[in-house]
């Protein structure tokens, strides 16, 4: 069985993505194959200024700053997506159908995804696993440096969990709210003292 494969019960998505992503629900397990584009803070800012260098319709954007050596992906795990909370709307407006990253995103992004796109969680720290299922096929904005450039990657069945669906469902928020309730019960806190 290939690395990360969970026995084939997961739905396999292929880029370019279409309306099939609208059927997904937070908590679903999927795999994703096809072309994906890495982008972190600097790449988002550059794309807002100069335009998106790839066809965004049905595209998947991966929050990742890989280690690349001699034109080869050494490791390529997800970075914290929340840093891109305020930099994401133009991508969804342009037709991007999936964001891939770790840790989830803010409520503004949950609203932007509604009816249009999904957020897919890749296990944080799993940089060797991710790279084993990826092949580097190009790069934009290489002058931004290794971590911040837009790398074009061919992915082969990346194992993902739907973190935020296109209906406002947000697994991360549900878990956070439950944790808050548990915390207040255990430490007998009457009113909210946690920011």
């Amino acid at each position, binding site marked *: 069985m290939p690395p990360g494969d969970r026995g084939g019960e997961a739905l396999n998505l292929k880029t370019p993505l279409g309306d099939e992503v609208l059927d997904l629900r937070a908590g679903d397990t999927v795999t994703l194959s096809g072309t994906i584009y890495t982008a972190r803070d600097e790449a988002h800012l550059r794309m807002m200024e100069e335009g998106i260098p790839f066809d965004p319709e049905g595209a998947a954007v991966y929050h990742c700053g890989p280690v690349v050596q001699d034109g080869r992906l050494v490791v390529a795990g997800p970075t914290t997506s929340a840093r891109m909370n305020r930099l994401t709307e133009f991508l969804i407006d342009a037709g991007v159908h999936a964001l891939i990253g770790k840790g989830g995103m803010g409520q503004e992004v949950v609203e932007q995804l509604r009816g249009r796109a999904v957020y897919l969680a890749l296990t944080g720290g799993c940089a060797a696993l991710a790279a084993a299922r990826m092949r580097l096929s190009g790069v934009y904005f290489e002058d931004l440096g290794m971590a911040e450039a837009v790398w074009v990657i061919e992915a082969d069945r990346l194992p993902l969990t739907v973190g935020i669906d296109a209906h406002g469902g947000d697994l991360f928020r549900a878990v956070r709210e439950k944790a808050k309730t548990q915390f207040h019960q255990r430490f007998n806190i009457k009113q909210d003292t*946690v920011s």
Partner: protein
Amino acid sequence: MVNPADTTVLGALADATERALREAEIQLPPDVLAALQRAAAAERDAIARQELGNILENIALAGERQVPICQDTGVPVVYITLPPDVPFSPALFEGVREGVRRATATIPLRPNVVDPLTRKNTNDNTGAGMPAVHVTPGDRFTVTVLPKGAGSENVSRIGMLLPSQAAEIPRFVAETMLLAGGKPCPPVILGVGIGGTFDVAAALAKEALLLPVDTMDNFEAELCDAVNALGIGPMGLGGDTTALSVKVKRAGCHTASLPVAVNVQCWACRRATVEVKR
């Protein structure tokens, strides 16, 4: 003129630092791996089981391919034990820096160290006061590295509690993880420093991350239970496993204060110790 003895120490320490970093970045310590395996076997949540399965798969692949476990290869935190016959000299610090520079090129590591204000990258993982090097006396000449990623370091906290608040330490520790959620890549290991001064508590919390994770005393187990009751789970997606272990180090403190520091460590608790050859 450089003392020839210093040149020898510098070269030997650079070699040992590079080797320790290679081991730490590619292979998790056996106690941490065993804790992850136990957690995966005990986890009841289906998504959490998948996440833990991916983590174990990733660790195996990093070993097979001899690549770093995570692309955030961290910043090196370095601990040296110094036997009586090795002089305390600048060569110790330069040897470590040289080892870090070499490891950055050869493993390779992501260049992570920047100027704090201009954000200019030095491209070799060294900088002013970086890496941090801590020297203590010992019987053997060893170097220990703890490469520390930013996701977990960024959610670490220190609290200057009042002497009357000792019973609130579990709440402070659990609150740290409540605020952190999935950001530090749980399941985490928490290093807790209690006592000392503001700075000593933080240093103790980091040193606690060097302790084996497979045993906890009653107090550590109580803290760990309080964190796991939150149900944050691997990556903040929910589940039984939020913390693999909590380790505590203590120091005496002022009668009027109670410093408590929590250093959050992601599941990739990377550490390795290498003897410096002389």
